[in-house]
Every structure is written in structure tokens, then in C-alpha cells.
């Protein structure tokens, strides 16, 4: 018997670690991974609420989030490969094509 609130707090912890990772890491791939971490944290919240209400709607939302995350990962990694080919770097500080 675990209070549902604990699952939600765990989701909040993971989400905030994802935010921190998004802010301090300097590699495009790692920033992308922290986005996946944030999506996972939100998924945990959805599943906890689905359990709380005894409904499957939350689980179906998680299913769709997974599908979109898979599509996003494929496109995002292709963009990273194309970016690396042009700039020869993965550091976001040196990717400033749009700055001027």
C-alpha cells in the first residue's frame, strides 16, 4: 500500500532532474536524452492517475506518448547526424547558425 502521491512525487523528481540535465548538459545527444527522461516522468504520472481512477485512459495516453517519442527519436537523431555532418561538432554552444 503506497500512497499514489509518492508515485507522483517520484515523477516530479525525475522531471526536475530532466530539466536540470536539459539546462546544464552541452551535448545535443544528452539534451535529447533528457527530453526522453522528462517524457518518462510524465508517463509515470499518467499511469499513477490511471491506477487511482481505475480507468485505462491514462494508460492509452502513455501508449500514444511512447509512439510519438519513438517517431521523435528517429527524426531527432537523423537531424543530429545531419548537423554533425555539417558542423563536425555536437556541442550546442558552437551551433549558432540561426544567431545572426
Amino acid at each position: 500500500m503506497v500512497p499514489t502521491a509518492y508515485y507522483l512525487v517520484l515523477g516530479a523528481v525525475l522531471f526536475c532532474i530532466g530539466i536540470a540535465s536539459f539546462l546544464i548538459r552541452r551535448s545535443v545527444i544528452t539534451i535529447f536524452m533528457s527530453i526522453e527522461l522528462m517524457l518518462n516522468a510524465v508517463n509515470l504520472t499518467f499511469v499513477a492517475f490511471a491506477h487511482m481512477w481505475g480507468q485505462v485512459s491514462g494508460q492509452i495516453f502513455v501508449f500514444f506518448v511512447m509512439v510519438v517519442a519513438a517517431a521523435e527519436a528517429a527524426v531527432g537523431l537523423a537531424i543530429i547526424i545531419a548537423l554533425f555532418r555539417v558542423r563536425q561538432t555536437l556541442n550546442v554552444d558552437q551551433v549558432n547558425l540561426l544567431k545572426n
Partner: protein
Amino acid sequence: MQIVLFTIFGLLAVAAALNMLLQRHPINSALSLVVVMMSLAVLYWSLGAEFLAAAQVIVYAGAIMVLFIFVVMLLNAGEETRTHGSKIASIAGFPGGAAIFCLLSFVFLKYRSVLGTAQLGGLQAGAESNLLRIAHSLFTTLLLPFEVTSILILVAILGAVVLARKEL
């Protein structure tokens, strides 16, 4: 039983996420993220979402993370260099993130009794299986969104192929 599962795998997930945050090399971060996803799969299972636990292992830990690790190895990504970039992230970002966390956990813990407790296993005792209910909703009321996701995946595959071609 449930509290033991929650404690072990919750702590494992948080520790692996912190490891992902602190490691300098992308491959270490990717492997830590796999540990986070596996622990989350166990937590889903303990919340009665068996289908999602399996999908989490297959889709996230199996497919997406393998793609990440392949890209890290393909690009031969080395350790990150220390940045001397903008300080806005640490000035505004971390207090903001901490504020979001404090707000969320305050609300969740305040309404702890209203939110109820989670029990190990399925949604309701004696109910039909969880997978049956998900499949029923997906193939009746949510059929259109379900079919649209297939188009989304197709477009994503085509986009990935086009973007990763040699001559852009």
C-alpha cells in the same frame, strides 16, 4: 510488498537519473537512462499496467535507447567540454526547476489522502484484463487516433531517411 518494490525501484530510478545528469560521457548517460526506463517498467507493472511495462521495455529500452547508443557510437561522441556559455540557465533555470518541483510535491503531498493508495496488481480485483480493456478502447473509440499514429510513424521513418542521406 508494494512499498518495497516502490522504494527499491524508485531509488534506483532517481540514482540512475542523477548519474545520467552527472556523467560527462554520452554513452554513460545513455546506459543510465536504460536503467531508469527498466525501473519505470517495474513501477508500471506494480501499478497494474502490464502492457505498458512490456511496451516500455520493448519500445523505450529496446528500440529508442539502442538507436541513441548507435548514434553515439556512429558519431564517436567524446566527453563534453566545460562550457563558458550563457549563465542564464543557472541563474533562472535551476531556481525555476526547483520551484516547479516544490510546487508539485507540495500539492501532491497535501492532497495525499484524497489521492488514495496504490495496490499491487490490476486495476480492480475481478475485473477483466487490463490488456483487454486497452485493446477494446484502442480499436473502437480511439480507432482514428490509432490509425493516425501509423501514418506518423511512416512519415517519421521517411523523414529520418531523407535527413540522414549523404547529400542533404
